[in-house]
């Protein structure tokens, strides 16, 4: 298969895959505002579900809460104001995610801090291990080289070059 055919085949595959996904997007309904605000709130019945996803019919919490939410939205209140009203009524536990201020905002920083810390460790390790490799090479080059070692290195270099060449063809 030549390069052009391969490219054509790849393109065809992507068009197929992308077209399988895209109409779904085109068909997607616009969610109403209440639904959007509702995702920021939890149902308080203890089911651990998002308010708009609580599926308990006759749920003692979600029904009244949704009605309350609809009333706020109908009044044209801003999202933040609606959420604040719910916090006042149900405490911060009503929020589906920790707030971005105060002590509870720490939850948001933990994954990022873990990533930065981990990344730092990985970088330090890589640098340390690279330095070890450089030191090893330096000490090897400064050490007296006997004929057998030289011969082995020549073979090794030749083998590496050949491997590089042949794998390049692939």
């Amino acid at each position, binding site marked *: 298969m030549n390069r052009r055919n391969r490219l054509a085949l790849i393109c065809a595959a992507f068009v197929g895959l992308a077209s399988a996904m895209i109409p779904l997007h085109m068909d*997607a309904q616009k969610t109403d505002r209440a639904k959007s605000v509702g995702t920021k709130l939890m149902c308080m019945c203890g089911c651990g579900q998002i308010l708009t996803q609580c*599926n308990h019919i006759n749920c003692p919490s979600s029904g009244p809460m949704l009605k309350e939410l609809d009333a706020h939205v109908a009044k044209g209140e801003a999202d933040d104001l609606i959420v604040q009203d719910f916090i006042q009524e149900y405490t911060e536990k009503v929020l589906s995610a920790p707030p971005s201020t105060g002590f509870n905002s720490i*939850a948001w920083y*933990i*994954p990022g801090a873990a990533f930065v810390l*981990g990344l730092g460790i990985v970088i330090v390790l890589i640098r*340390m*291990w690279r330095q070890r490799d450089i030191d090893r090479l330096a000490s090897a080059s400064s050490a007296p080289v006997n004929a057998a070692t030289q011969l082995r290195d020549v073979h090794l270099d030749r083998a590496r070059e050949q491997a590089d060449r042949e794998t390049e063809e692939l």
Partner: protein
Amino acid sequence: MDIFGSYALLLSFAFAVYAIVGGIAAIITRHPLLIKSARNAGFAVCVLIWMGTASMVYLFYTDNFSMVYVAAHSNRSLAPYYKFSALWSGQEGSLLFWSFLLSIYVFSVLFTYRGKHPELMPYVGVVMAGVQIFFLTMNNFIASPYQVFAGAGAGGLMHMVTRADGSGLNPLLQYPEMAIHPPTLYSGYTGFTIPFAFALAALLGRYPGEKWIHLTRRWTMIAWAFQSAGILLGAHWAYAVLGWGGYWGWDPVENASLMPWLTGTAFLHSVIMQEKRGMMRVWNVWLVFLTFMLCILGTSLTRSGAVNSVHAFAESNIGHWFWGFLLTIIIVCLAAYFKNKDYLRSDNQLDSMLSRESSFLFNNLILLVACVAVLAGTLFPVLSEAVRGSKISVGPPFFNRVNIPIAMFLLFLTGVGPLLAWRKTSVESLKKNFGYPLIGGCIAALIAVVMGLREFYVGLCLLLGVFVTLTILNEFYRGARVIAARTGANLISSAAQLTMRNTRRYGGYVVHFGMVLVFIGISGTAFNQDKQMDMSAGSVMELGPYRMHLQNFDSDQQPNYSSERATIDVDRGGRSVMMLYPTRRFYPSNQESGTMVAISSTLREDLYVVYAGTNPDTNLPVIHAYLNPLVKWIWLGGVVVVLGTILALIPNRQAVMVMSAAPATGGSLLPGDPLRVPASYSARSQLPGQHE
């Protein structure tokens, strides 16, 4: 039979104690008879646990309602197959089931390595017996499933009381998948005991080199495969039974299963570094420890009530036993590590930043960060309560926001990793290897954007998914082409040969492809739609391209439940395409309701219809319909992941010896490893795919 089972468990506890004491004595004295005796005690523990479990199953099947556990989780009209799964439906039974599965692993290990590795196995036996003792303590003294109803008779004598019928099984558990999901997931949890036992044993016994890694690789993969399948089966159960239209709610119990999976995945990758380069010895040992600790932590969270969960186990009070066990494990691991850490010292060296080694480091970093993110989100309500005195909720918005970027990075590394060579990758080879897959991914994303896609992460997922798929295909294609050129076979059979020559490597690629499918499936969530309506016969609901005509309602009476069923004719483009029958069941024995969701599933989307109940205001049935795109890709991806793991577990087939004339200056070399021996030295016994 209740006495038989109870005694069997007590006896198994005694034997487990002997297995530890005898094992320690065997380690100290090195006396062959003691070693054999401790091992045989290990076998006896397992057989006795099997008897104890079989006895409990028998009690369920004989409707022995003098047993508290049987009465609480079964009833006479319960279908026979659910009487078996009722075994693990409650706290006590699930702990017994845990012991049972663990005993299967322990027996298999003791049997497989009987008479082998005499320096290592006594340590392994002691560690495994230690874990068994904890669970047998639970089974015998803390949460025994063999408690009976008793009442005071004439003269104040206690006697056994038998109830006429039981309370029945929780309706949510009366679903075929519930007969598969817990055993699968528990097999994952318990399976991680084996690599943990080997790692700790190798550390305690200063067992040489990488041998423990080779010994436990397959056990780890088996546990990982069970964990993966268990998680996906759980997700499918939640999707098909709970009726909320989703499959993953970031519930603490779900998170508990995900965390050891993440660290287990990291271990499966980083262990390759140790095998190939002798690197990361300390890290690998701690990854195994951490994975096992997370299994226990997850169980503690599930059973202690420390965090809010929809799972019933959370209401129990045995959590402090698990916390104690977890603390013991941490202390033992730390002590073993600090005592013998010199043994783990390795001469880690890195030739280049652009190498397979560094990609594994980043892979581990990302998996661990994902684990920390899940753990933080799961435990933060507890922390918040401890500090501020009030619990907060950490729900799906937090987990999604934090984990989606991490998942994307992981997907990127899934594609990049296999393209990098060990030790060093030249920029030219990187360009060549990345070129087509990256262009392919960009084209796919571009087409999607042109066609209207505006969701950033979905576009990125599509780009990376295509990129990873192409890198995998490229790996198969390159190897298969070389084999085809040498053997004259066609590309497909060459690819099959290639795979069978290094099942671990190519099985791993299949697993990666499975993960791509899972990711694409998950990305479909961005386009979910749903609608809820009070419907009567003749009414119509429209959702996306579907029109659902509710035809009628009927009811049915079964021995264990009564049901109401809606008959819905679904049409698309004016043409009737299917009939759906969402059902609502009522179980009189425990006065609970359950839904049987009607799902029409295609690769494109799921039409998911729930008969949610009756609206008290209108007295009309409530039908909730969801249109969930690409969900089937997740289940399909799960199947591919499991198949890939099975493939990786198959031993490599010996390469066909193809003798050919080798050039005098050094024969043909094979792609991949720059240090491969020239063909003139070894004939062509090594063909592509035989290296990692």
